[in-house]
């Protein structure tokens, strides 16, 4: 697909035009806490240097709380009503490659056999414009899960900063192509050169573990002392799941508003909570934190790969940055790789 040269002011013009056409625009907030909705084109952040927001952009596709339907009891007659379809056309400006990559990963679980149209509609209505990432800290590990600061997976359009206020705009998906063709001023100057990715590699986060070895060890070692070591530290607060771009476990609950009506909602949940798997009988298959942490790691780096051929992790490092007891998941995986190497020797 084609690439074009665009300037910051053209990106601003695009945002202004979208706003005038009632599109919703999201971008990383100045305090880098989350993705916020913009009211003016001047708020757009296309900053490859910035730290990933504390919370991923997952909630734009899979909200923290989503109405599944409303129920209404009128004269004893019960009726169910579908919520309004998430119809707003949305553009996300300046997503990180480690955010964008989560969309196709989540799409797998939301679409095997039964299709979750709540998720699908949001994906369908959203254009993801990512930007190559030049930020890296000790928590980042995208290169260990097959991604990189230049990964275009899950993006519709991809920006690579070249010089001050100038970008290469790569068209990544058909959806992105169709979208950008509607804005001819964005595709005036085609970029015909080649971008030298090799030059950039020195600044990528270093690979912390070998995924294949980790997966192999996990597949063979269900019981191991490492889970007790981490489990004893872990508070089970589930912040890791809430900030994660790929964690997707949810609960389904009813909420009443008044005596005769209410709604059923799908809320974010986490396998790190003790009640998550507790049976009605009181029996709990994952009764302590070590088992729950083992589930988290296995689900991400073993089970999901087996089931959907994807790693349930984009290496964004959010879980590590936010952990109140400083558990570093990449360090846990490094340890696992050491165990695997020792087993081979």
């Amino acid at each position, binding site marked *: 697909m084609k690439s074009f040269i665009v300037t910051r002011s053209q990106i601003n013009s695009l945002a202004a035009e979208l706003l005038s056409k009632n599109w919703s625009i999201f971008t990383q907030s100045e305090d880098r806490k989350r993705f916020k909705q913009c009211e003016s084109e001047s708020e757009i952040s296309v900053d490859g240097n910035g730290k990933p927001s504390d919370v991923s952009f997952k909630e734009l596709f899979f909200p923290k709380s989503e109405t*599944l*339907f409303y*129920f209404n*009891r009128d004269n004893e007659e*019960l009726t*169910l009503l*579908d919520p309004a379809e998430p119809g707003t056309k949305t553009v996300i400006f300046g997503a990180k490659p480690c955010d964008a990559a989560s969309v196709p990963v989540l799409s797998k*679980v*939301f679409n*095997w*056999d*039964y*299709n*979750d*149209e709540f998720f699908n509609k949001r994906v369908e209505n959203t254009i993801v414009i990512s930007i190559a990432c030049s930020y890296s800290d000790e928590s980042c590990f995208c290169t260990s899960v097959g991604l990189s600061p230049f990964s275009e997976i899950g993006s519709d359009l991809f920006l690579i900063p070249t010089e001050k206020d100038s970008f290469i705009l790569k068209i990544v998906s058909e959806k992105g192509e169709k979208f950008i063709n509607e804005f001819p001023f964005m595709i005036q100057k085609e970029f015909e050169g080649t971008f030298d990715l090799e030059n950039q590699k020195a600044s990528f986060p270093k690979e912390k573990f070998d995924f294949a070895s980790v997966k192999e060890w996990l597949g063979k070692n*269900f*019981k191991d002392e490492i889970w007790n070591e981490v489990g004893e530290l872990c508070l089970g607060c589930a912040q890791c799941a809430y900030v994660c771009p790929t964690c*997707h*476990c*949810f*609960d*389904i*609950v*009813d909420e*009443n508003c008044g005596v005769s009506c*209410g709604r*059923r909602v*799908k809320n974010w*949940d986490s*396998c790190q909570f003790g009640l*998550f*798997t*507790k*049976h*009605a*009988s009181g*029996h709990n*298959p*994952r009764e302590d934190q070590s*088992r729950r942490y083992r*589930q988290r790691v*296995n*689900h991400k780096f*073993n*089970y*999901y790969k*087996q*089931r959907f051929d994807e790693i349930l992790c984009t290496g964004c490092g959010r879980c590590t940055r936010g952990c109140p007891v400083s558990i570093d998941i990449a360090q846990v995986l490094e340890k696992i790789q050491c165990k695997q190497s020792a087993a081979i020797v």
Partner: protein
Amino acid sequence: MNIYKPELVEIKEIIDETPDIKTFRLKFKDEKLQNNFSFKAGQFAEYSVFGEGECTFCIASSPTRPEFLECSFKLAGKVTKAMRKLKIGDTMGLRGPYGNSFPLEEMKGKNVVFIAGGIGLAPVRCIIWNVLDLRSEFKDITIIYGARSVSDLVYKYEIQDWQNMPGVKTVVTVDPGGETSDWKGEIGFVPSIVEKVAPKNENTIAIICGPPIMIKYTFPVMEKLGFSEDSIITTLENRMKCGLGKCGRCNIGSVYVCKDGPVFTYHQLKELPDEF
């Protein structure tokens, strides 16, 4: 399509099984749905009380009796508490059927042993009636059922029918101390009664369901009786929410109990991580 939105069903009959277990007989409010609804023995559904929430139970009635469907539930939490207050004519929600089923075709031409404990008889009752309604296609039938006490036995009104059927051996037991003065059945835990009854393993499929502790101690007895790991079948009752392979709650390893199960052979269970 909104996969999370249930259909409406009406409660047609309520049976008090035990002090804390009831059975609801349900019918879809939309007659067309009722006529088109089909399921297989072993599948489950999500039942709702609007304003309280959803609960997962197996379908306890047989697909051979499609004019209604039944669920049996034990008082355990918020939704089952609300369900106990419902009356005949009240409306509930139902999504399903979900999950795999008992291998009925494979069971044809064979002896079948049914072993159940407590409310674990509900999914087994579904396949028992399925088999009995197609009686000529199966060989000898053995039913072994146990509960904590006489008052905890479910489907008492049907056990009598099974006992009177030719070619069906029905043994009912209660845990020691759970018997009444006029109790004529066995006294003892299910695994030891299975050992005593000692069903033959040749050309036989065994279906087992009950509390985890009963299943745990019954498997070794079955192995001792010579049953192969593939001829022992059970159904898992993991906590679920969506029933659709999305919410991530029922997983054991890479297996989704709601999609790959709830019916598993003992052989399949042995391959799974030890986490159920």
